């Protein structure tokens, strides 16, 4: 076991996979000198310029070239420097990466991993803070995971790299250096599509992912101390596919659901979770499904007071819990 923070865990995953499989390369802007978050620190020295490849500033090409290389014996990890900058590659991702296997009737495969830092809370302003999982969880053919712990980051990134399907790995940047965790030094993977129960409880099922997991745990602790309300916190970790079974199991137990996500409330991924529970878990419910999310305002304004106003945090989540508990 080793104590690692999340960015170190990401680094380890990339390094171990590249040692294990010589066909893996990582390509992106600034990856050669270690990357703006140090995810590829020292890797160019170890693996060379061909396998840790600086690309021109061209996101559509980063994804498109990665797709092409993946058809010809290379297993690329395409790094997009910030999730906010992935939009020029939207066409390549949706029209090509996600669709190639289906449109060719299963004959061509695109085992590309796209990894990118996402999320707010670091004074990133409107272009270093966005949550993009809703756009991509929507796309058949793509898998999407959202990680915010060192253990999850390493295990899920490895699974993503090994998956024959294209996988988007969204790493919450606020969690990169948030805390250290004991994680296995040797090889392990976490299957995509499996949620993790972070905290067991009996009164409310709180479904969340990303940085909101950490905020939700704080809120749950506070509420339990306050009046004994027992909140079960489930971290989805994967949004496409997502662990519907685990969630419904929890809803059956508690009867009340609070869905918490950092993204804008309308059309955010939590809306899909809510709709599914309403449809398939209706009989278990004792209250309306409630959500805590950012308002429909571009995430995130730069000034600290503005950003705080917008984003969900432990206090706002606690308020949501209270409201639901009182129903």
């Amino acid at each position, binding site marked *: 076991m080793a104590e690692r923070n999340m960015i170190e865990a990401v680094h380890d995953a990339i390094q171990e996979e590249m040692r294990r499989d010589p066909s893996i390369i990582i390509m992106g802007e600034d990856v050669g000198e270690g990357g703006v978050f140090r995810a590829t620190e020292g890797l160019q020295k170890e693996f060379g310029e061909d396998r840790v490849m600086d690309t021109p500033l061209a996101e559509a090409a980063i*994804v498109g070239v990665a797709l092409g290389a993946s*058809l010809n014996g290379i297993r690329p990890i395409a790094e997009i420097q910030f999730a906010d900058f992935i939009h020029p590659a939207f066409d390549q991702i949706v029209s090509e990466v996600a669709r190639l296997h*289906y449109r060719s*009737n299963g004959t061509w495969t695109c085992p590309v991993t796209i990894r990118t830092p996402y999320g707010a809370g670091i004074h990133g302003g409107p272009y270093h803070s966005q949550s993009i999982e809703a756009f991509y969880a929507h796309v058949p053919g793509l898998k999407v995971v959202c990680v915010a712990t060192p253990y999850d980051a390493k295990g899920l990134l490895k699974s993503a790299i090994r998956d*024959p399907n294209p996988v988007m790995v969204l790493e919450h940047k606020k969690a990169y250096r948030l805390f250290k965790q004991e994680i296995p030094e040797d090889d392990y993977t976490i299957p995509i599509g499996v949620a993790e129960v972070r905290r067991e409880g009996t009164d409310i099922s709180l479904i969340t992912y990303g940085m909101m997991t950490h905020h939700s745990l704080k809120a749950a602790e506070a509420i339990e101390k306050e009046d004994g309300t027992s909140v079960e916190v489930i971290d989805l970790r994967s949004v496409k596919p997502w662990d519907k079974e685990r969630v419904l199991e929890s809803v059956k137990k508690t009867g009340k659901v609070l869905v918490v996500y950092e993204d804008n409330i309308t059309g955010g991924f939590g809306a899909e979770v809510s709709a599914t529970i309403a449809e398939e878990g209706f009989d278990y419910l004792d209250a309306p499904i409630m959500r805590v999310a950012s308002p429909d305002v571009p995430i995130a304004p730069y000034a600290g007071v503005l950003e705080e106003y917008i984003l969900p945090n432990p206090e706002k989540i606690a308020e949501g819990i209270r409201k639901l508990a009182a129903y």
Partner: protein
Amino acid sequence: MVSVKEVPGAMGLGKEQLLDLYYKMFLARTVGQRERMLNRMGKGPFAVTGEGHEAAQVGTAYALTPGKDWALPYYRDIGVALTLGMTARDLLLAHLSRAEAIESGGRNMPSHFSHPQLRIVSGSAPVATQLPHAVGVALAAKLRGLDEVAITYVGDGGTSVGDVHEAFNFAGVHKCPVIFVCENNQYAISVKWSEQSAVQDVALRAAGYGFPGVTVDGNDVLAVYSAAREAVDRARRGEGATFIEAKTYRLVPHTSDDDDRRYRTAEEVAEWSKKDPLVRYKAWLEEHGVASAREIEALQTRALEEVDEATHYAESAPPPDPASAVLHVYADE
């Protein structure tokens, strides 16, 4: 009969190969015509064909080694697909969206060529997305120390798309063994070339990325072959990319959904029909004593037979099982 070794412009090709070029061009023409006919008869909902483009397509594709080299064509490239080894049957099956169509089992539109064994990569419809892919395939070959090359095709309209710039720049920086071919037929549906670009010869843009760009008469199959041969040799020697602009003309509407009378005159089309690459090449073969008129007619008959057989086969082939629509969203674990 003159020995082809002495024939100027034969580009080191033997008689069999010179005739094969003609056959492939004529086959491409025939398949295109047949698809449009089937569409008019209501049998295939959509046809996009490349009549007029045969020299540009067959000439370039002929310089590759099928199954070793990679091709990422666009939807007009019937000649490319056939030259690299797809059959008339394959194309007609796709045209009629049959289950066994290798391209996509009826999922993708026709003329979205794909054949994994032949290394023809499944294409989509958004224009020019395949150019970065070709760069990626070529990059992989280079990283793996293989002397494979990738060729990719796009129309004149396609050269305006941002992905082209990104692909060119990447290929230039990383010296990828890729050949970019623009089949410049002077129209992007109805938009004339002068509205698409402020320069006449788009090949000159290659200089801005550090590799050669050549403009060639796209209706002269041997000139095209010569340019492609050089580009392939360059790429195999590790010298990087080439951009070939083949000037040609589309003798038919953009697709079966297009009425080209709305944007060009019958006179213009007639003028270009006189420069039909098939007619030109047939004349060249006869003039240089490579083949007699009768030998060429025999090739035409053979092609027609092949297309007739393919049509019959495809018409009788079963459509996909509806339940198969949900398959292959993901690669099986």
